[in-house]
């Protein structure tokens, strides 16, 4: 197995996750590569059908059939320094990694928490499952976890059921649960999408603070470029199962090297840019058309049909490769130089 660079925690290489649906195949993730370094937050951005969530579920090995990893590697550096390929890890070995070393939080905390158990029991169970401690010690640790995520009156809240808490509180409990075994990688799949903006700001602050405190890496999956700007160090933009652009956050927002990223940013209403003189209404520049269906992708570049920069070569196979448009800035576009 090749070596990982010293500070890399996770390296996804040419990952292919497909769903066989009768005679059709949904190539939800089709040749995705990126890596996450220690203490770094990598954001995977995309719209529905981009494959961002399937990528994170592949890393957690939580794919529901007929979803299957059919190719590529997911190299992960374990806490003891050894390296494993998650794509090939036997389920039993995966169980020691999942939840303990790589934890995940989801968009809707209500569906990820068990409604029949108190939050204290759920956090304790996680600790008891992975670590050689007794019930009392696990409960004490559960209380410390609730304090860590700033839930007031933690001792009393341990005995609450999920339905007794607000959406923001439940997401805090999910984070406490995820961090109970001090994972080295946290996968956060749209963790603030269901929350109000004032609560979203609290959760983003909390994640940033905990990351500094614990030193974990975060893979942050979202569709919201505003949230990306606030939390990410590195950004991976996905479209129709592929990475179309990747760059450090400031660079990506300064200069987009893929028409899709550029279009996505132009769609977000910005009053200072889109609203003209007094009384003029805003005029947005939408990307025409719809996100393509991953069971029936066109030849060539998947974005060609919606792209304002399209030329003949774009609609022919093979599609454009992901190349370095600049140092540390990747683009999957034949015309990245024209951008």
């Amino acid at each position, binding site marked *: 197995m090749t070596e990982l660079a010293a500070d890399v925690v996770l390296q996804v290489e040419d990952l292919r996750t497909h769903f066989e649906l009768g005679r059709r195949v949904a190539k939800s993730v089709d040749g995705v590569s990126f890596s996450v370094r220690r203490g770094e937050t990598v954001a995977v951005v995309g719209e*529905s059908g981009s494959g961002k969530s399937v990528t994170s579920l592949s890393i957690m090995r939580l794919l529901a059939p007929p979803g299957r990893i059919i190719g590529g590697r997911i190299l992960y550096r374990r806490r003891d320094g050894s390296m494993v390929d998650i794509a090939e890890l036997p389920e039993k070995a995966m169980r020691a990694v999942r939840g303990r070393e790589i934890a995940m939080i989801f968009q809707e905390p209500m569906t990820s928490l068990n409604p029949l158990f108190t939050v204290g029991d759920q956090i304790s169970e996680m600790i008891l499952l992975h670590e050689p401690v007794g019930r009392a010690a696990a409960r004490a640790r559960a209380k410390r976890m609730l304090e860590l995520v700033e839930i007031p009156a933690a001792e009393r809240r341990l005995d609450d059921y999920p339905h007794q808490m607000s959406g923001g509180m439940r997401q805090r409990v999910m984070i406490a649960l995820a961090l109970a075994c001090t994972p080295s990688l946290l996968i956060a799949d749209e963790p603030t999408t269901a929350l109000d*903006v004032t609560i979203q700001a609290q959760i983003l602050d909390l994640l940033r603070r905990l990351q500094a405190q614990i030193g974990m890496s975060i893979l942050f999956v979202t569709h919201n470029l505003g949230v990306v700007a606030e939390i990410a160090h590195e950004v991976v933009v996905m479209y129709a199962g592929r990475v179309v652009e990747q760059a450090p956050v400031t660079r990506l927002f300064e200069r987009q090297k893929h028409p899709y990223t550029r279009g996505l940013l132009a769609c977000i209403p910005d009053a200072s840019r889109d609203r003209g003189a007094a009384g003029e209404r805003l005029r947005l520049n939408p990307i025409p058309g719809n996100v393509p269906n991953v069971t029936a992708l066109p030849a060539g570049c998947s974005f060609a049909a919606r792209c304002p920069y399209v030329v003949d070569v774009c609609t022919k196979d093979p599609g454009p490769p992901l190349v370095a448009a600049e140092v540390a800035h990747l683009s999957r576009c034949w015309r990245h130089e024209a951008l």
Partner: protein
Amino acid sequence: MTVVTHPESDVRARQGGTLLSVEHLCKQFPAKSGLVKAVDDVSFTIRRGTIVGLVGESGSGKTTVGRCLLRLIEPSGGRAVFDGVDLFALSERQMRTCRRRLQIVFQDPYSSLNPRLRVEDIISEALDTHGLARGAARRERIAELLTRVGLNPEHARRYPHEFSGGQRQRIGIARALAVEPEFIVADEPVSALDVSVQAQILNLIQDLQQAHGLTMLFIAHDLSVVECLCDEVVVMYLGRVMERGPSRRVYANPRHPYTRALLSTSPVPDPRARRERVVLRGDIPSPLDPPSGCVFRTRCPHAIGACAQVVPPAEAVGPDHVVACIRQAELAA
């Protein structure tokens, strides 16, 4: 001779007088332990041809306001004077006739379209109810509506599941437009859509609004959308209006601590933007047991003892700009 006028007065001139005046709207829902005040003493006006944005977080009562105005749920108190008529005083039957002039577009384009009806029947349901078109005229009207919202008239025979989210929202808009309404409540019409599709629908809403001189109440939680689209904005929190005014003014100079917090925590797609963020502590309190006095005081960074004593009155701080905060004057200084 050139007459120099204030840029905002131009806008006023183009827009007409008041079309809808909401006065002291209240809505209570029965709960196990008493009444929940979902909407409490909400007042605002909408001038003909303008778009008013109604913003707030979950539990603010914004959706309830929209539904009360169309009497999809019955208000508990107050008035809604639409073109001189109090909608809340109308009988069920009178209201049904009146609904031809008021329509709604819902948030979720998946659950708001009947999956068993063809697009043509979804769109023409209101036409049929109001007996507006039949036979060839009906078909023609459906085709025209589909074209107007950017769909292919040949799609009339299809079912909702054959369309994407954005296309379904176009169908929802065509349905609302079918009866040529004067006023539309748009309840988070783009929240469920992908970002790239949201922009298409927002442009469509604007085009239609301008082409038909529509008046709209645009309910949203996304502040940047409201800033760009709306002439005026009403900010709600826990059933009450915190601040309202011309959107340019409110966004440039928010006067209520809640509006300030909301604007400062709304994420902007610019990693270099180093803003002074007001991150509010805690959660929205339960509407079953709202705080006394100002409902925002439990999360307000500027709350003082007096805030628990009185419900802050709406004070005018500029033309059409109203703030409900007893400390607004000293905080502005």
